[in-house]
């Protein structure tokens, strides 16, 4: 009888753990981090090495190429790979910057489709802003005023999303018209700053709002920082083994 109770309880625990959670609960990535923008920053570091490390830059870009192709068409990816293959540092960075502008546009366009979904819109806007932050130093260097305006527009766009609040606390209404206005302002400034003829961002897939798993594909083994977790884990386990063996001895 007792065993039956334990069995039933075990089964219940297994079953409740088996209930699938919703998609958005799974996204482990930092909302303030956009993969394409992170890859751009890392590529910049590799290209700034002397001599520029084009093969590392290529490996980095290839980790996002599939996503880029899917959301923005195959053309941007091909152009970037071509400039890497030609070992043209300036062209590679410029093309990556244009790609980031397209990415900001993609994120902002997606928000309108899910405007009522506060959580999703907020995350998409954060991704757009994270992408802009990678571009911000360049904009600031050329035109500090524009950089300030774009950042203010992002803040205003976030305000326009409103907030459902909690039991009436902190409730704020949303305003899609204000959002659209700010979106246009941001995109127009970026288009002018990076000299893009069009912000036609290719096809959007239906799975637009589904974020990736945030899992990384590429790592830099020459960087000591990446070895630290492994060394720590092995050291802790080693220490426990030593303690355990010592204890076992009479």
């Amino acid at each position: 009888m007792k065993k039956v109770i334990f069995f039933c309880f075990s089964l219940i625990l297994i079953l409740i753990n088996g209930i699938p959670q919703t998609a958005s609960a799974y996204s482990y990535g930092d909302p303030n981090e956009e993969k394409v923008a992170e890859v751009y920053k890392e590529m910049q570091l590799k290209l700034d090495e002397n001599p520029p490390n084009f093969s590392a830059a290529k490996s980095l870009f290839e980790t996002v190429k599939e996503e880029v192709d899917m959301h923005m068409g195959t053309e941007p990816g091909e152009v970037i790979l071509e400039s890497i293959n030609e070992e043209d540092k300036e062209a590679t960075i410029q093309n990556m910057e244009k790609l980031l502008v397209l990415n900001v546009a993609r994120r902002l366009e997606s928000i309108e489709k899910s405007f009522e979904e506060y959580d999703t819109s907020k995350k998409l806007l954060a991704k757009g802003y994270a992408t802009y932050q990678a571009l911000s130093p360049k904009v600031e260097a050329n035109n500090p005023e524009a950089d300030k305006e774009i950042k203010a527009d992002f803040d205003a766009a976030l305000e326009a999303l409103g907030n459902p609040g909690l039991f009436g606390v902190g409730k704020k209404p949303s305003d899609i018209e204000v959002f659209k206005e700010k979106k246009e302002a941001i995109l127009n400034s970026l288009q002018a700053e990076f000299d893009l003829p069009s912000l036609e961002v290719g096809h959007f897939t239906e799975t637009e709002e589904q974020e990736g798993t945030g899992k990384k594909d590429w790592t830099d083994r020459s960087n000591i920082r990446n070895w630290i977790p492994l060394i720590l884990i092995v050291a802790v386990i080693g220490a426990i083994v030593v303690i355990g063996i010592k204890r076992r001895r009479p």
Partner: protein
Amino acid sequence: MEVQALLITFREVLEALLIIGIITTYLKRTGNPKYTKYVWLGAALAILASIGVAILFQVVFTGFAAMGSEIYLKIGIMIVSTVLLTQMVFWMASHSKDLKGNMEGKMNKFISTGNIVGMVIHSFLVVLREGIETVFFFAAITGGNIGAAMQGWGAITGTLIAFAVSYMFFKGTMKVKLKTFFQITGAFIILISAGLLVQAISMMQDVNIIGSVMYHVYDITWLLPEHPIDYAHYLRDTGVAPLISGDVGIFLKALFGYSSMPSIEEVIAYIGYFAAIFLLTSSRSSKKEKAVEKKAAENKKVVLNPQVK
């Protein structure tokens, strides 16, 4: 949404009640039911704290700079939970070994002020973790309107079912030997704890707090993806569906910390965790058993005519 809210609260409340149930069962079986109310007080405070956290994330941390705080809080909670649950495993392992038959009266020696405070903190943090998880899941299923999920019938029904199930379970276990009870619940706790540990490592790698020398030791998404999203992505990218559904993957992830493409750090930490727990609990017990045997031998010498009850 109501059904999802029901399932979420059922799962989270039941998990919290499992730990609280272990603690209160321990108190009752050791003849200290008077402390039970403090454990429940800890749990009640944790519910209030969870609501506070919900307000913090819904209303305060909404700027771009603060938005990522959610994930850092999750990582922090996971690490604290792993430490607490591991400590609980040791506590249970050492106490269950000391229990011989029905000599529960002697258990009183284990009850000290420190223990009681520890149990209250334990129940507070366990409920806080489940409460915060519930908040994040509610935010996900309602598109950010946490209050909406709480107000429906789903959340209340889920909570009631969890209470009913755990009541029946713990009422049943009162007749089970405490040692067996601790061994079985301990095994569950080790699994939950190991899963939390590797998920915390995985999250820290995802948000770049720590690096990795190998992000994917292997990739068996084609066989068993860890989540329905991975299933959908694999299908989209290759045109072929993985062999086993992502729903099975998420079940294994929740139970054993399964990952279809783990980093080398996750793999080593997971295996190492079980090895370490085994080594430490077994070495502790062998030492204690020897001490007990020694004591028994000494007692035999002194007491020539032991009283038989």
